């Protein structure tokens, strides 16, 4: 307990962070340890190279997108707070949360998780996944194994299937609808202790 408290005291605004993200002190400490482990030069900030050093991310087809998602537009570095905020999306949802439409969605609700995933597709942040963006994602996931033609057909069919308002792009609502059968809470949550 002592070390937890001392670690916590080193983090500025930790109460606010816990409030906002719903992490417990134990979680925060773990994340802070990880943050420091990644931050090899001890600058208190993470740069893209620090993320790039993670082997598993380097092998990941969408690794660069994931890394990019940590850095908000214009920022060159990620501080601990942003790091935690992004990871908070993947906390399992609280089942007993009262559904209050007036309150803003907590960061690990189903909608927020979906929104995060959506933003990974939508690189130019126009609120829609265009055909080109979809093609890019497909290309990176399927690597070299398919022809351009096949990719195009798949992209076409995907858009046709999901696109309800016929604007030839997938909006967030359409995205959400196409995943309504998937248990997003299950699919987009990871363990934070141990």
């Amino acid at each position, binding site marked *: 307990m002592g070390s937890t408290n001392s670690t916590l005291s080193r983090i500025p605004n930790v109460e606010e962070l816990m409030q906002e993200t719903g992490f417990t002190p134990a979680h925060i400490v773990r994340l802070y340890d990880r943050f420091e482990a990644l931050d090899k030069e001890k600058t208190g900030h993470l740069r893209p190279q620090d993320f790039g050093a993670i082997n598993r991310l380097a092998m990941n087809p969408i690794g660069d997108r*994931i890394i990019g998602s940590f850095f908000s537009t214009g920022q060159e570095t990620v501080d601990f707070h942003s790091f935690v905020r992004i990871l908070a999306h*993947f906390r399992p949802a609280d089942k007993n949360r009262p559904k209050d439409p007036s309150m803003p969605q907590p960061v690990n609700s189903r909608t927020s998780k979906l929104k995060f995933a959506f933003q990974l597709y939508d690189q130019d942040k126009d609120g829609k996944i265009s055909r080109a963006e979809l093609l890019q994602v497909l290309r990176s996931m399927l690597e070299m194994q*398919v022809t351009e033609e*096949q990719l195009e057909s*798949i992209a*076409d069919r995907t858009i046709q299937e999901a696109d309800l308002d016929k604007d030839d792009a997938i909006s967030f609502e359409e995205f959400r609808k196409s995943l309504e059968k998937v248990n997003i809470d299950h699919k987009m*949550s*990871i363990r934070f202790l141990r």
Partner: protein
Amino acid sequence: MANYCSSSSMVDLWLTTAAAARQHVCFHLIPRLSGVVPESCLLIVVGLLVGGLIKVIGEEPPVLDSQLFFLCLLPPIILDAGYFLPIRPFTENVGTILVFAVIGTLWNAFFVGGLLYALCQIESVGLTSVDLLACLLFGSIVSAVDPVAVLAVFEKIHINELVHILVFGESLLNDAVTVVLYNLFEEFSKVGTVTVLDVFLGVVCFFVVSLGGVLVGAIYGILAAFTSRFTSHTRVIEPLFVFLYSYMAYLSSEMFHLSGIMALIACGVVMRPYVEANISHKSYTTIKYFLKMWSSVSETLIFIFLGVSTVAGPHAWNWTFVIVTVILCLVSRVLGVIGLTFIINKFRIVRLTKKDQFIVAYGGLRGAIAFSLGYLLSSNHQKRNLFLTAIITVIFFTVFVQGMTIRPLVELLAVKRKKESKPSINQEIHTEFLDHLLTGVEGVRGHYGHYHWKEKVNRFNKIYVKRWLIAGENFMEPELIAFYRKMELKQAIMLVESGQLPSALPSTVSMQNIQARATPRLSKKREEEIRRILRSNLQNNKQRMCSFSYSRHTLFDADEEDNVSQVHLRKMERRVSMMKGRMSHYLTVPADRESPRPGVRRVRFESNNQVFSADSVPTAHFEQPSTPRTPDAVSLEEEVPKRRNLKADGGGPRGTVSDSNQGELNYQRLARCLSDPGPNKVENYPFMS
């Protein structure tokens, strides 16, 4: 000879009775009743009637012979279950399933056995001669959840995937525990004493039995996959290999007293992805149909025999013992589930709710395995009849009472049901995307979690295993592409069914040369038209719900499937062989969108082995009985060589205004996108389905 004939005709008679009984029971007699009462109950009742009839005649009704049961009746059901086991939910919940299967069954066995022994100590019951080991043996027999019964009941209620896989998985995996406990206690009760060493050995035995069973199954599965790699010239016997290897796995492991059920499951699970990549479409269909058929027949026979055996079997009724057994089974199940869930929920990401727990507890049905194990007890075992009676009572209670009431309870409690969903390319893509995302986030987090290991297994599979077990070039094909192809073919089949595509082709027509490849010369406008048509088709087209269900009774299959896929396969063959030439054709089949049947429309294609140079554009005609009707009919030129002497058209594609059949366009789309450089070995295009 006469004897042989008569015994095999007896078998035949039984089978016919079973099949007929099932048919009538399910569909004809009382359709509404079969909605309320699960089939298993009805079949047991039929069995009771048949048994009663035989007794009235004066004959000795046959009892469910354990040999017959374990060697012939059980394997098909288990293989069917294992082969079509939904892997993703299973692996996601495998920890929970194992906890329920192992610890839950152990708890049940000891609780029931122990308390029954305590009961037997009471003088008034009159069973003081039953010793502890016998009670524990009885407990171990009656405590295992039965896969056959679970399958029969759960199939109809369409519970959500999580609960289904939990109960079902548990019923499959607890076989190892049952086998070990049963053998142990039987040995012990012969010997009479138990030492600590024996207990320790028992634990070791458990691990050996279960892991050994899985290993045996996996080995046979790999062998089957490896064999299927080379069966491209002998397509006809492909299904045989699947069945043979699975049955050998079962027999081998039973021979070594390992868990046969786990071997069978492991074999089916391991073998499936590779075998399906290798075998032909027809073989796949054969396997599917045979498995469903055998498991259906087996299930029917098992339940009927249960009924008959109840009438026949020697009974020793002891009110107290039987009633207490039933109560104890229920109580121990409920307590076990609640207790275990409490512990498990600390480790799960998605917790099990009270409703889930209730269904898991309530769905713990006992069935024929318990009866057969009881029957196997040596006949000079004291109290065998007592045990058998009690087992049968428990089985009846769970199957009838719990089986009948589970559906109304599910509806009453508003438990989440299974969502029927069309296979959606969106879902596939996004799910794969999320898999990558989660793996990446786990990497950032520094955590070796579920996704990490899944990724590792996939990578291992892709790099090392697929290379050896999948024929031809197919091992490179990513899953997404296979899925997409599957989808497109299914849609083509549906379109054939709904009549938008000519399915029965006269012999003179050979649709063998439908070249469909998009070329850069497709003008922008053309592309737009294509896209618009396809989009509108997708909305208009009434797509049948294809649910990937593990129900035995729903098979997705159109009778047309083979027909179309034949056509399709031949098409593919030709297309690939034509890939050498630079053909620039794209296919449109204008047709009547409104008409429900293709009518008298004749579409003429001809095979053509010539190579066209890039700028010659042959045209083809279509004879249409009907005139264009739809206002927004868009045309796309169909360019298919009509005769040997081509009519060069110069210029570009020429559009003729006529009806466009979206369905056919879709088919064309299908054809087009499948015009990839496929495997070089063309004639035996393996089909993944």
